[in-house]
C-alpha cells in the first residue's frame, strides 16, 4: 500500500519575494515536512512511500534522514529516479505519473497553486492532498504536515473515504491546454516575463473555479463581490476594467503583500461545461496567478470542468476518524 509525496523545490521563489514581500519557504522546511509526513504514514500502517527527486536539495535531505533515521516506524521510502530531472514543471508531472503507475492511493503535493495544478493534471483519479509551500496558496492548504499525513494515510489505507471532487478550468490557446485549479486571468501584458502577475493594470477577464472572500490571489476579486464556495459546481466569470472606468472597484489582496484596487464591470456565474471565448487576443493568459500562455493574436478558450482532481478533505477525514475512534484505544477499567 503506497502513498506518493511530490515536493517542488522551486515553489516560493518567484518575483513576488521582491514586489510583494511574499514569504520564503526554505528547502530544509520542505524536507522536514516530508519527514513529518513519513512519520504519520508509518504510524497508520502505510507500507511504502514514493518520494519525488529534485536537484533543489529536498530529496537529498530526505535520503540522508532515511539513512540515519532511528524511527523504524517509517514506511519503506522509494525515490522516483527513473526520469531524468529537467529543473522544470515536467519533474513534478513525471513524478506524479510514476506514483500513479506504481499504485499510489493518495498523492501528497508540496508546493503552491502552480505545483498543485501540475500535479492535478497528472494524478488522474488518485486523491490529491495539496499542502502549501508556495506563494499564492488558494488551492493548497496551509496545514501541519503531520496532521495532513494522518489524513492521507487514513484515506490510503481505506479506513476513511472522505474525498471531494474539485472543479477545474481548462484553458486552451495555440494548441496548448493548461489546467487551472483556482483562476484563469487575461492580461494585456504581452510576455510571460517573470511569470507571476502582480500588476492589476491591464487585466481584462477573470475566471474562477471558486471564489472565497478570505482568499489570497486574483480569485479574491470575485470572492469579495460574489462569493462562490468550493462545494458548488458553479464558478465565476468576471469582466475587468481599469478602476477609473469600471462600474465597481474592489480592493483585493491579489498577492501576498499587495492590496490593489481592481475594476470590475460585470460578474456572473460560470456553469460547468460552459466554454467561453476570451475577448482578449493580444496579451497573455495567467493560470493560477502565473503568466503561462502568450496569445500574440490567437484565440483562447476557457471551460469549467466538473471533473477536477479528487481532493482529500483533511478536516472531514479526521472528524470521521474521531467519530469512529480510529486513532484511539479504550482500555478496560482497572477497578
Amino acid at each position, binding site marked *: 500500500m503506497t502513498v506518493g509525496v511530490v515536493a517542488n523545490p522551486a515553489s516560493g*521563489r518567484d518575483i513576488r519575494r521582491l514586489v510583494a514581500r511574499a514569504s520564503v519557504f526554505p528547502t530544509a522546511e520542505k524536507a522536514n515536512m516530508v519527514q513529518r509526513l513519513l512519520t504519520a504514514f508509518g504510524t497508520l500502517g502505510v507500507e511504502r512511500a514514493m518520494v519525488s527527486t529534485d536537484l533543489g536539495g529536498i530529496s537529498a535531505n530526505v535520503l540522508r534522514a532515511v539513512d540515519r533515521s532511528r524511527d523504524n516506524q517509517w514506511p519503506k521510502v522509494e525515490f522516483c529516479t527513473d526520469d531524468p530531472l529537467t529543473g522544470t514543471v515536467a519533474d513534478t508531472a513525471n513524478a506524479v505519473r510514476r506514483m500513479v503507475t506504481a499504485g499510489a492511493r493518495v498523492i501528497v503535493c508540496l508546493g503552491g497553486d502552480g505545483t498543485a495544478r501540475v500535479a492535478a493534471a497528472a494524478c488522474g483519479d488518485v486523491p490529491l492532498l495539496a499542502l502549501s509551500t508556495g506563494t499564492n496558496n488558494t488551492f493548497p492548504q496551509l496545514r501541519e504536515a503531520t496532521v495532513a499525513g494522518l489524513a492521507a494515510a487514513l484515506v490510503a489505507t481505506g479506513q476513511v473515504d472522505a474525498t471531494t471532487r474539485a472543479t477545474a478550468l481548462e484553458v486552451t490557446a495555440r494548441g496548448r491546454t493548461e489546467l487551472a485549479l483556482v483562476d484563469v486571468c487575461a492580461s494585456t501584458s504581452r510576455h510571460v516575463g517573470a511569470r507571476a502577475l502582480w500588476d492589476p493594470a*491591464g487585466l481584462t477577464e477573470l475566471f474562477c473555479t471558486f471564489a472565497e472572500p478570505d482568499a489570497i490571489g486574483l480569485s479574491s476579486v470575485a470572492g469579495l463581490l460574489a462569493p462562490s464556495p468550493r462545494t458548488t459546481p458553479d464558478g465565476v466569470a468576471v469582466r475587468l476594467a481599469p478602476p477609473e472606468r469600471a462600474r465597481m472597484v474592489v480592493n483585493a489582496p491579489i498577492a501576498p503583500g499587495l492590496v490593489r484596487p481592481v475594476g470590475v464591470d460585470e460578474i456572473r456565474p460560470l456553469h460547468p461545461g460552459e466554454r467561453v471565448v476570451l475577448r482578449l487576443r493580444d496579451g497573455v493568459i495567467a493560470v493560477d496567478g502565473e503568466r503561462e500562455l502568450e496569445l500574440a493574436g490567437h484565440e483562447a478558450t476557457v471551460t469549467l470542468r466538473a471533473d477536477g482532481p479528487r481532493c482529500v478533505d483533511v478536516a472531514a477525514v479526521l472528524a470521521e476518524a474521531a467519530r469512529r475512534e480510529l486513532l484511539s484505544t479504550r482500555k478496560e477499567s482497572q477497578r
Partner: protein
Amino acid sequence: MTDTLPRPVEGGLDENRLREAYRVMRTIRMFEERVHDEFATGEIPGFVHLYAGEEASAAGVCAHLDQRDAIASTHRGHGHCIAKGVDVKAMMAEIYGRTTGSCHGKGGSMHIADLSKGMLGANGIVGGGPPLICGTALAAKLQQTGGVGVAFFGDGASNQGTTLEALNLAAVWNLPAIFVAENNGYAEATSSTWSVAADNIADRAAGFGMPGVIVDGFDFFAVYEAAGEAIARAREGGGPTLIEVKFTRYFGHFEGDQQSYRADEVANARANLDCLSRFRARVVETGQLRQSTLDQVDAEVTTLVDDAVTEAKAAPKPTRADLETDVYVSY
C-alpha cells in the same frame, strides 16, 4: 479593444528600447562567436571566457541603468561591458592586447574596464565584484545621486566570502545594490548542484533579510521585469536585492576547455531556449518589431564586429616605453 488599456510591466519597452535591447544581445553574441573563432588562430593572448548564451542577463539588467549607475563584472565580462556601453572596438583591441584597447592593451579579456561608462571592470578574482559595488552604492547613497550598483557574479563566486560579506554589508547599510547571481550551472567544471549548499543561490537572501528571486535567464523579459523592480526599489531607498538568473553558457569555462563534465545541455539550450531566438520570435509575432528591423540590426552588428577585429589586428601593440604608464607608482 485593448488599445486603450494600459500594458503592465513592458510599458517602458517601446520600439526603440526593444530594438536597442536586441542590438545589445546580438552584439554580445556576435562578439563572442567571433572571439571564439579568432582565439583558435592563436593570435589572442591570455585567457578568454565567453558569455554567449547568457546575453539576456546583461541586456535585461543594464537596460535599466544610466550614467549614475556602476556595474562590477566577472572574468566572463564581455557581455556586461557591451551592455553597459563600453566601446566594442576598444574591447576587441583590448582582447588583442593593442594600445587602442580600453586599458591600452595591458589588461586583456579579463580586465576590460571603462570607468567613464560606470563599468568597474571584468575581474580575475572570483567574487571580486560584490565588495566593489558596495563602495559605489555607498557613494551613490551618501551623494544622493539616485544611482545603484550592480554586481554580476557566478555560482562559484556565490560561495566566496567576499560575496557573502558584501551581501551582509549591503543589507546592514541598506545600500542601493543589486546582486545578480549568474548561475550557469558550473563553477569552472564543478556543478553548482554539488557545490552550492541550499542549492538555490537566491535562498541565501533570506539570511541577509533581503528579497531573493529566481528568474529564467534565457528570457530577456523575465530578467528585465525582475531587474526593473529591484533597481526601482533600490533607487527609492528600498535596499538591496539578490536576483538569481539560471541559464547555460554555450562555450566552455574558458576557450580550450574540453567540457568533459557536461553532456548535451548546450545543444538543447541552443535549440529550445536561446534568448535571441525567443526574443525575435516573440517581438515579431506580437507586432512589436518587424523582422526587417531585426535583420537590419544583425547587419549593422556584423559590420561592427568585422571592423572591430580588422582594426584591432592593425593597431599597434604596447612598447617598452609603455611599461611605466598607467601604473599607480612610476619608478
